[in-house]
C-alpha cells in the first residue's frame, strides 16, 4: 500500500509534534487563528488523542486583529477545552502603537515581534510551534523544521543546524529556544484540501461575504472598526470579498471573490494566479524584508 501525498504530510506533521512534546520541557503552540494554525491544532489533537494536548497555546494579540478572529479563537478554545495564553505588549498599547499611525514596519515589530519575545521570555518556553510553510515565501523555503533561536530569539540563516532524515536536534542551552514548523512541507493547496477533507472549522473571513471595504495603496481594506481613518478621498463600498490570509485588519488586503465555501475556495485557488502572501503589506517593505524580519525574531 502506498500512502497518499496528504496522508504522508499528515503523518510527518504528527511525528514532528510528538517529537517536540517528548524532548522539550516547556513547549507552546503559537496559535494565530488562521487556517494554518487551524490545521496545526487539528494535527496536534490527533497526535495525542484520546488524551489532551500536553502543551498550551499562545496567541500574540496585536489588538488590531479582525473582531471575527477573536470571537472564533474563543469558541475554538472552549469547544476543545484548550489551555490558551493571550499576550499583548502593554508597553505598545501604552504608547498607542498601531499600523495606521506608525506604519506596518514599526507596528509589526512592537506588537508582534517584540510581543512574541516578551511572551516567550515571560513563560520561559523552550520550543514554539508555528504554522509557517516553506511555499509561502522564499526565505521560509530555507528554514529548518526545527529552527534554532539564540537567547535573543535571533535566527542566523547562514548558520543553521544540518537537518537530516527525521533526526531533529532538540538540544539547547538555557535561554535558547527552537521554533518548530510542522507544516513546513505543506503547500497552500494541501492545507485547503486537508481542511476540506477533515471538515476543519475556519474563521468565516476566509469565505466571501459582503463587507465594508475601502481601497488604499492597492489593498482592499475592511473597515472592521472606527480606528480605520477613512479619508475624504476614500469611500466605503460594500463588496463581495474574502481574505486569503488573516492578520491585522489595516494590513490585510481582501480579494474580490465569490467563493462562499471551502470547495469554492479550492476551485478558485486552482485557477488563481496570485500567491497568498500578496495580500500582505509587510513582505514588500524592501527586497529581502521577510528574511530580515525573521532574523530579528518574527515568525
Amino acid at each position: 500500500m502506498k500512502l497518499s501525498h496528504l496522508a504522508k504530510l499528515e503523518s510527518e506533521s504528527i511525528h514532528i509534534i510528538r517529537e517536540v512534546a517528548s524532548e522539550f520541557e516547556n513547549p507552546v503552540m503559537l496559535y494565530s487563528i488562521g487556517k494554518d494554525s487551524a490545521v496545526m491544532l487539528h494535527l496536534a489533537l490527533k497526535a495525542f488523542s484520546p488524551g489532551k494536548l500536553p502543551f498550551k497555546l499562545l496567541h500574540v494579540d496585536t489588538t488590531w486583529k479582525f473582531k471575527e478572529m477573536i470571537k472564533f479563537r474563543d469558541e475554538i478554545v472552549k469547544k476543545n477545552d484548550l489551555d490558551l495564553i493571550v499576550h499583548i505588549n502593554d508597553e505598545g498599547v501604552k504608547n498607542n502603537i498601531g499600523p495606521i499611525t506608525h506604519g506596518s514596519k514599526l507596528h509589526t515589530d512592537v506588537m508582534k515581534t517584540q510581543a512574541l519575545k516578551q511572551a516567550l521570555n515571560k513563560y520561559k518556553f523552550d520550543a514554539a510551534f508555528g504554522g509557517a510553510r516553506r511555499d509561502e515565501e522564499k526565505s521560509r523555503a530555507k528554514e529548518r523544521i526545527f529552527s534554532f533561536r539564540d537567547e535573543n530569539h535571533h535566527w542566523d540563516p547562514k548558520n543553521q543546524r544540518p537537518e537530516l532524515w527525521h533526526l531533529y536536534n532538540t538540544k539547547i542551552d538555557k535561554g535558547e529556544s527552537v521554533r518548530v514548523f510542522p507544516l513546513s512541507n505543506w503547500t497552500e493547496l494541501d492545507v485547503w484540501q486537508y481542511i476540506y477533507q477533515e471538515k476543519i472549522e475556519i474563521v468565516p473571513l476566509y469565505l466571501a461575504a459582503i463587507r465594508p471595504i475601502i481601497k488604499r495603496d492597492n489593498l482592499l481594506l475592511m473597515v472592521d472598526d472606527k480606528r480605520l481613518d477613512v479619508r475624504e478621498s476614500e469611500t466605503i463600498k460594500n463588496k463581495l470579498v474574502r481574505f486569503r490570509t488573516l492578520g491585522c485588519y489595516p494590513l490585510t488586503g481582501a480579494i474580490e471573490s465569490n467563493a462562499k465555501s471551502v470547495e469554492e475556495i479550492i476551485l478558485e485557488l486552482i485557477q488563481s494566479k496570485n500567491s497568498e502572501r500578496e495580500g500582505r503589506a509587510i513582505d514588500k517593505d524592501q527586497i529581502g524584508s521577510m528574511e530580515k524580519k525573521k532574523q530579528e525574531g518574527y515568525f
Partner: protein
Amino acid sequence: MDLDKFFQDQNKKKQVKILTCGSVDDGKSTLLGRLLFDSQNIFLDQMNQAKIESEKYGTQGKEIDLALLVDGLQAEREQGITIDVAYRYFETSNCKFIVADTPGHEQYTRNMATGASNSDVAIILIDAQKGVLEQTRRHSFIVSLLGIKHIVVAINKMDLVNYNENVFETIRDEYKELISNFTFTTINFIPLSALKGDNIFSKFENTNWYKGPTLIEALEKTDVLDSSRDNKFSFPVQWVNRSSANFRGYSGTITDGKISTGELITTTSSNKQISVKNIYGPQGELSEAYSGQAITLTLSDELDISRGDIILSTKNDQIMKANQFASHLIWMDQEPMLPERNYIFRFNNSYINGKITDLVHSINVNSFEEVASKKLNLNDIAYCKVAIDKMHGISSYSNNQKLGSFVIIDPYSNKTIGVGMIDHALRRSSNISWHEMSINKKTRSELNSQKPCVVWFTGLSGSGKSTIANILEQKLHTAGKRTYLLDGDNVRHGLNKDLGFTDTDRVENIRRVAEVSKLMVDAGLITLVSFISPFKSERQMAKDLLSSDEFFEIFVSTSLEECEKRDPKGLYKKARAGELKNFTGIDSSYEEPENPDLVLDTNSTNAEELADQIINFLQVNKII
C-alpha cells in the same frame, strides 16, 4: 469542475522527493526555476517580483532570470550562488514533487547530504560544455552514500553545443565508467537545456537522435519504496500515551513493514512476545498500518516500554542491539572530529553518549580512494567504528534508513556536527564480558583505610602543576596514605611514547592516562595526575570514567604571560622561535575549566601552601 474528481485525482498522485545537485554554473537554479515555471507552479506576483529582481541582480540581460525564482536568501541573490538547502514544491498531473535544492560547492557537501537524506531520486546536472568534473564525482558519491537508488543525469546546456549527439554520448560513457561501483537501481541520461526548456516537459526536435524520456517523464517513473514488506515491522516508540487510567498506548511512526491487529510483536528491551490489540491512525482505528504512518498502538498485555525502545515484528531479525558498530560518517563542523572524544549520538528516538573509537579510513570524494587519517575536517567522509554508552536497537542503513542513521551533536555547543550511516553492528561488544573480581575497590580501600580518588591537575606548561603535585604527594605519603603520581612528561617516556602533540594525539594521551588513573583508583590509590590536559572534553571524559566523589579537578591558573616568564624548561622560547610545534598556549589552544573543584593561584601563594590547600580540600571531602 468536479471537485470530488479533482480530489480523487489529487490523492492518486504519488509524492516524489527530488534532490538536485550540480556545480556552481551548471544551471541548477535555472533548471528548477524552469520546472516551476513550466509546471505553472509560479504565481503572477512571484513572477513580477522575479522581474524586479532580475533588473537588479539578473544574469540574463533583459530576460527574466529563472534562477531568481528559487534563490531565496538575500546573500545568495547578491552573490548569484546557492548557499543552503531550499525546498520547492510543484506538481504535474501524475505526481507531487518536493524538491531539495542544494548547493554544489565543495564547502557545502554537508548541505547536499542534508538534501539527499530525504530524497527518492537525484538529478545530477552536468554542463555539456564542461563534461564530467570533480564535483560531478563528489555529488554522485554522496548521492550513493546516502542510499538514493534512482538517478537522472541531466546533461544541460545542450543548446551551447549545438545539440550534438557525440558530446552527449561521450559524457554518458564517461559517467557510466565513473559510477561502475555504485549500486543505483535506475539511471537515466537526458540531454536538455534548462534555459530554453528543451526535453524537460516535452521532447525537443533538435535532439531527435535521443529516444529516451523527458526529464519529467523520468522523474514521474521513480519507484517510491514499497512500504509493505512482510516481517519487517519496526516501530520506534516516540511517546507513551497514558491519557487515562485505562488507556496505555505507544505512539510513533512506523519505520518499516506493516502491522495488523492480533499480530505478535516483541521489543528491543524484552524478549517477551505479546500481540497488538488496537491500532489508531490519524484517521481513526485501523486493522493494519504501514511504513510511514504515525500511529498509536495498544498491546494485549502489560510490558515496560518507553521512548528509546523499538517495537518489532517477532520475525524481524534485521534490528539488533549493540553498543558498538561500524559506520560511514560525514563530518559537518569546522572543529575537527577526533577519535575518543565524547559526543552525543542522536538515534531515531534516543540520545546516547559515545565516541568514535577508530577512524578506519577516510574517503577522498573525488577519487573514491581510501586514505588513512587521524582526524576528520569539515565535509570529510570516513568509515569509522563507534562505541556508545548503552545497548541500543540499530539496523544497517541499507536495510532501514530510519534506524540505521544517526546525527552527532557537540555536548558543549549543542551543534549538529556530523552524521552517520550504520554499516553493521560489531560483535565484540557482546563477546567480551566484564569479569567481576572477588577483591574489589571497596575491599582494597578498606585495607588501606583511605578513600581512593583522582586529583587532576590542569594548567599550562610551567604553571607549577608538577611542583605542587610533588609536594602534595610527599605530604600524603608522610601521613601514611598510599598514592601514585602520574606526570605528563614521565608518562610520555613510556606508555605514551608513541604519541606526538597534534590534537588527535593529545586526546589519545589523555584517554590513556584517564584509563590508567581509573585502574589506580580501583587499586585503592589516591592518584595525582599532573597533565596540561588542554581540552575540556577530554577532562570531562576522564571525569566521566569515575564517580563524582572520586574525581577532583584542580586548575593551576598561572597566566600564559607568567608561565612564559618562568619558562623552567626553556620550552616557550623554543616554541616562540618556531622550533616546537603545537605548543599549548602558543599555537595550540588551552581551554580553561569552567567549574574546577579548586583554583590555585601561584602568583600570590607558594607551592607549599597550595599543597596544604589541597590537603584541606581532601579533608573537607572526606578523602583523608
